[in-house]
């Protein structure tokens, strides 16, 4: 095997070729680029494929869809109660399962690659570790986006079916009533069912899952096993929901001791405020979400995701493999 032939077998990632190496001599090979989106894309698609082969993904997805679907059997309640519970349970299920999936799927990415030796094969090629980390996290974020979309579609479908059933039942019951009374009754049903405020709520749920995925990736760069990562993330999840309380106590200088104040400061500074991402509870209650609140919350989620991803890459650079 010539040098050129040998080199051509080691080109799974675009951008690897150098001038004069392999391929058709008349086509000039692309120079090596220190940052390549196509390499990241290759790692991302590979990550997605790996994750979709996981049984846990399907178990979680099926369980979430079952939970959303089960809301259909709430006929004993009035339609307002039924829609309220359906929306609460469905959005809660989307929130729980995207968060769980973000943690479980990300926690195993790096340890699994190390165990399968895949990481050595990839990093032996001129792939910067930043690209490797970016490819991995983008794969998880894409998977989370697909899962969120599937669950949201199931939720909207169930809600639409129930709304239509109630509308038909009311139209039948009120067939002899004046048209304005019928239209009033139908309007009340429609206003209790789907409203577009739910969509920004679902986007915020997704961004919270992205944040958790990035944070899990960061933890997994220095964790010794994926179980450790999951346990740490479970603690971070609870503490993150308490962060706002800790922050307010710390900043308002309540009469607590030095140790308590240091503890509160650590919680407030090191953990993300996950409570800020729980907008759906109030959206379902009928409160409209303002554009300012949505934008600020979304930007905070993106900011956290970027910071934790960069920190994960930084730690991963220093990791001995």
């Amino acid at each position, binding site marked *: 095997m010539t040098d050129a032939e040998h080199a051509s077998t080691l080109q799974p990632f675009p951008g690897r070729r150098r001038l004069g190496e392999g391929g058709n001599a008349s086509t000039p090979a692309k120079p090596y680029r220190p940052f390549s989106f196509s390499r990241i894309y290759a790692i991302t698609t590979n990550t997605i494929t790996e994750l979709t082969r996981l049984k846990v993904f399907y178990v979680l997805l099926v369980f979430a869809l079952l939970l959303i679907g089960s809301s259909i059997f709430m006929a004993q309640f009035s339609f307002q109660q039924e829609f309220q*519970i359906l929306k609460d349970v469905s*959005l*809660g299920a989307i929130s729980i399962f995207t968060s769980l999936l973000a943690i479980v799927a990300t926690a195993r990415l790096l340890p699994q690659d190390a165990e399968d030796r895949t990481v050595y094969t990839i990093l032996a090629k001129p792939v910067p570790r930043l690209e490797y980390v970016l490819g991995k996290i983008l794969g998880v974020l894409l998977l989370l986006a697909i899962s969120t979309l599937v669950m949201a579609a199931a939720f909207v479908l169930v809600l639409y079916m129930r709304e239509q059933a109630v509308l038909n039942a009311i139209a039948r019951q009120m067939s002899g009533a004046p048209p304005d009374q019928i239209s009033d009754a139908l309007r009340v049903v429609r206003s209790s069912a789907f409203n577009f405020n739910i969509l920004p709520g679902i986007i915020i749920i997704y961004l919270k899952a992205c944040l958790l995925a990035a944070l899990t990736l960061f933890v997994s760069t220095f964790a010794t096993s994926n179980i450790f990562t999951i346990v740490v993330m479970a603690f971070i999840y609870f503490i993150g*929901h308490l962060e706002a309380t800790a922050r307010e106590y710390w900043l308002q200088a309540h009469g607590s001791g030095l140790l308590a104040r240091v503890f509160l400061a650590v919680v407030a500074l090191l953990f993300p*405020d996950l409570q800020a991402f729980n907008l759906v509870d*109030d959206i379902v209650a009928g409160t409209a979400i303002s554009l*300012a609140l949505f934008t*600020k919350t979304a930007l*905070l989620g993106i900011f956290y995701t970027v910071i934790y991803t960069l920190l994960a890459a*930084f730690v991963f650079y220093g990791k001995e493999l």
Partner: protein
Amino acid sequence: MMRGLVVVGVLLVVGTLKLPVERNLALLHRQEHFSGVEFNLDLREKIGQLGFIAALSGFRAIVADALFIQAYSAWENTEWGRMLLLFRQVTTLQPRVLLFWDTAAWHMAWNASVAAMNDKTQPRLALRVKAQREYFALGKDFLERGIKNNPDRPELYEALARLYTEKYNDHERASEYYAKAADLPGAAPFDRRFSAYELSYCEGREREAYQRLRSLYDEGEKERLPNLIKRLKFLEDKLGIPQEQRIPEKTKPVR
């Protein structure tokens, strides 16, 4: 080691930068009536340990629904005390859901109060009436607290007005709450009318009631409903309104 210190340093710097942003966001939440639930010991005592943990994890809507379904079962089994406790937990967790306040008040003031009055195990009428009034008060309390948490939405004002009419026979307060509901955005068109109807039953305020009903009548055909015409004619007689100022005898009511 050095890398670890850099990471901690970056996290602390990011933490310091994010603090004002998160505080502003929390303030914005409060301004828009989000996050009406304060996670403190009071809530912990009300909803129990498991519920508190679930609420802390961001699943308070689901916990509230589970408790609501339990309250529904308690109603089916006529366990009024348990139902009251559960509804207090539900409304504590989800203070912005009007449905929970309204249902809780309805169960207390209508269902539990009737059950108390028909309680065969209590032979003394005075004690049955006392129990009934206590349930009225519990219903009223739910609605008043609901209004305190949702001052910008008309539905609970309407419910409280209904309670004053049907349970306390207090038309003046009922009129007041219908009027408050009518002033809010998204109010039902009947709120103004009902406020005037209720006022027409109040001794000494007939003139004011007449003026309000008359101005509704003058707005056009849409407001000329059978009850409005009936109350208007009653007040015209009672106040001795001159014949030429009265509404036509054969006013055709709108269905």
